[in-house]
């Protein structure tokens, strides 16, 4: 039976000589055929993790399996295309010549070069030197190089970095297209809208630790009810008695309850019955951004 996971890590850790713990016991699994979003603020350990997955960095401890092999194994790399951070090519060579170099190294037929140039819509400018490319063109060439091997797994690290809004939209569309079918895409980003639009599942990393891994729907779709009432302390006390302390949090002068919206009328009846004035009572759905800030401890707008 074919393994359903294409990337699996256990206790993956990277500690640099300076003592900095960049990645701390990350256990993640990416399933075949999905678009997996790897979320985290800048410096959270996303790139270090991805570099370990493609064998550029050796982990201090822990294990990883990528496309059925240890990271960096030539057999595994033959099935993995990657764009780690910004695309890196030889500035004195044209886009096409750079892809030819990569094709030689990857053992791919040179015919494939024109095919991937078409996919990223760079054919008309493939004769120009890489050093003259705009940021968007450079990133697209990076994606083209990652696609050369027609890989089972595509690892894209912040592919929209440095792109203008139009470039970001084009890259999103490209990634969506690439992610269709059986190909697995592991997309690292700190742009939440991007991940929410593209990804099936996400892993959230913060301070080197994987703090959550689930489907996007599971993550943002945790239903709840918002209650604005006076006096708030009394309302909180009462609702805690009903649903438990863990189900209640206070945000912006309102109470957020992790309960089903169908319970709203019951909540209203109880609060009013206890002489508490209810000014607002409605179901709420969190955005990925809210979840992200909650999980990573980052403050919105900071």
């Amino acid at each position: 039976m074919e393994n359903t996971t294409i990337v699996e890590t256990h206790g993956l850790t990277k500690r640099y000589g300076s003592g900095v713990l960049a990645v701390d016991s990350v256990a993640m699994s990416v399933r075949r055929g999905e678009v997996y979003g790897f979320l985290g603020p800048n410096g959270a350990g996303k790139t270090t993790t991805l570099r370990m997955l493609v064998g550029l960095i050796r982990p201090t401890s822990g294990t990883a399996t990528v496309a059925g092999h240890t990271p960096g194994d030539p057999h595994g790399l033959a099935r993995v295309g990657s764009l780690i951070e910004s695309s890196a090519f030889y500035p004195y060579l044209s886009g096409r010549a750079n892809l030819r170099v990569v094709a030689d190294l990857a053992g791919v037929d040179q015919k494939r070069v024109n095919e991937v140039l078409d996919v990223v819509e760079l054919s008309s400018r493939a004769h120009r030197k890489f050093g003259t490319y705009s940021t968007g063109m450079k990133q697209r060439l990076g994606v083209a190089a990652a696609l050369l091997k027609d890989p089972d797994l595509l690892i894209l690290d912040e592919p929209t970095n440095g792109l203008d809004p139009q470039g970001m939209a084009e890259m999103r569309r490209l990634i969506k297209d690439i992610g269709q079918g059986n190909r697995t895409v592991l997309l690292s980003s700190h742009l939440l809208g991007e991940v929410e639009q593209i990804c099936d599942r996400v892993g959230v990393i913060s301070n080197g630790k994987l703090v959550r891994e689930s489907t996007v729907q599971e993550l943002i779709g945790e239903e709840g009810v918002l209650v604005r009432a006076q006096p708030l302390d009394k309302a909180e006390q009462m609702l805690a008695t009903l649903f438990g302390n863990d189900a209640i949090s206070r945000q912006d002068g309102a109470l957020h309850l992790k309960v089903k919206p169908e319970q709203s009328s019951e909540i209203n009846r109880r609060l009013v019955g206890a002489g508490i004035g209810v000014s607002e009572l409605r179901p709420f759905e969190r955005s990925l951004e809210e979840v992200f800030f909650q999980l990573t401890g980052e403050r919105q707008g900071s």
Partner: protein
Amino acid sequence: MIATIKAEWRKNRFRPAFLISSGLVAAVVVLVFMTNWYQATHPGQSDRPIPLAMLFPDQFVNDVMGAGFPLGAAMAIVLGAIVAGSEYSWGTLKTLFTQGPGRLTTWSGRIVVFTAWMAILSAILFAVGAACSVLIVTVNNHAIVWPAVADIAKGFGAMWLILTVNGMLGIAIAVLVRQSAAAIGIGVVYLLSIEIIAVRFIDGLNNGSYKWIGNLFLGQNATALIGHLSNAKGVTISAEQSLIVLFAWLAAMLVIAAGLQRVRDVT
């Protein structure tokens, strides 16, 4: 391995650094021949006049060797530093190392192509030197007499070895410091200054008791090898030793650079 050689050749065949170096090497040889020709035909009050016959084809190997070291060696250090160091500054090492071939395979491909380029540079040195000598002998109405093929082959092999070992020094330093600029500075200063001072200091210690250490330096052995090929007097290091030491330097630089490439993280 073949794939990595193909990729490295595709990458480097039109590389500006190599093309410019080829032109510079050719220009240096022309300059040396033309300057010597002028001095030979206009001796003036010179204490050491240059015989015109020294510039004829039968002597061209010696003339080329003189032009190739240390200037050609310095250029080889610069090229080695650029070839290895630019992979760090452009970030292309991560592109190379994520394609499939192992790090040592990729590294080996680079070394094969680099040594091929050193052979090309040596060939340019010899071809331009031969052309200059033919021009001089023709203008002076003398018959063209070539040196023995074996002498040309020995000279070519020695020049290739000297350029390659110096180029490998540039590569090893660039891998060590992960950049080109510092590697060029360190390598060229070492070749043209540090080694000379160090050898002079060591040779003078305890009435020359440690001269054998000075005889293990790179430049000393390159000079000795050239000296043997051009029948120079006063060469104290044997041809065999100079060959062994130069190959040992080459192997050491290869192992150090390959080891660093294999084990170090690419950040």
